[in-house]
């Protein structure tokens, strides 16, 4: 263990825990997969604890479950309206999964799977494809009006349509990149600050306090980014359902 790499990027290394190789594809069970499993287990146990003994006056753990549920339900209802509640289970699952991924990653020596862009890209591309399919299924070819709002004069449309098309296709990129960069930057900052604590000797108290403050900031960022990911998904869904 003495030769282990302790640089700021070492925490993002994917290590294989159980080697699996099926038909030439490497599908090993990695630490990333372990933390995804942990996130799912945490979600299940939290909501099992919140709902297995339901009372009119909610207990503490039931309140937590109800708060999260109502928070996301309110967000979906506010942005998409009644029709949007069909997609509420998906948005809620997404929110809780990312939330637990971010928060579990803040524990020391743990792994943040949302700090790998491929995980976020898979989620974002799924949302992008789903929103496109929902849009075409509800509006047919009329969905293409999204790129050219009604009543646009032709000279404006020539400029507007390419921009709208580009911004539509950049959605999955910005959606995944936002979460990835936030998590990456926060965790690198924590590790770099923590590196100063020992090397500065007695003055290490200053970076030590800074690590505490940044950890609090990171908890906030973890919550906000899960919220933002779910919020943007609902807004994209609103475009597909209502065609602004």
């Amino acid at each position, binding site marked *: 263990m003495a030769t282990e790499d302790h640089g700021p*990027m070492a925490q993002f290394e994917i290590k294989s825990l159980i080697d699996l190789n099926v038909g030439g594809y490497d599908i090993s069970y990695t630490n990333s997969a372990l933390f995804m499993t942990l996130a799912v287990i945490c979600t299940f146990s939290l909501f099992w604890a919140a709902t297995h003994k339901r009372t009119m006056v909610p207990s503490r753990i039931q309140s937590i479950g109800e708060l999260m549920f109502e928070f996301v339900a309110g*967000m979906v209802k*506010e*942005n998409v309206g009644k029709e949007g509640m069909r997609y509420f289970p998906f948005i809620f699952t997404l929110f809780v999964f990312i939330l637990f991924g971010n928060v579990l990653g803040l524990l020391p020596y743990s792994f943040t799977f949302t700090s790998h862009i491929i995980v976020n890209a898979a989620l974002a591309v799924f949302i992008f494809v789903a929103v496109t399919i929902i849009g075409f299924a509800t509006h047919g070819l009329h969905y293409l009006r999204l790129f050219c709002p009604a009543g646009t004069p032709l000279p404006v449309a020539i400029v507007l349509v390419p921009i709208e098309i580009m911004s539509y296709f950049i959605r999955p990129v*910005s959606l995944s*990149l*936002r979460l*990835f*960069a*936030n998590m*990456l*930057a926060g965790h690198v900052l924590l590790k770099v600050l923590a590196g100063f604590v020992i090397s500065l000797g007695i003055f290490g108290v200053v970076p030590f306090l800074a690590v505490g403050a940044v950890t609090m900031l990171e908890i906030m960022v973890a919550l*906000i980014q899960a*919220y*933002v990911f779910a*919020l*943007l998904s609902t*807004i994209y869904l609103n475009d597909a359902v209502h065609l602004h």
Partner: protein
Amino acid sequence: MELEAAKMIGAGLAAIGVIGGGVGVGIVFGNYMTAASRNPSLKDELRTYAFLGFALSEATALFALVIALIVLFT
């Protein structure tokens, strides 16, 4: 100039773009505070928009940060 040194300088230059994101996020939340204190009854409704604006303006800053990281680590 050596390649390694040029990379460091390039990453530093690319990270300058984050300034804009900082200013943007500050404006978004500052104006949210102003709006919420002028009309507290709209606070909850405005929060959604504030976070939306925060996310969109932050994304541009993060593009710059990601370019800096790509320059540095590839």
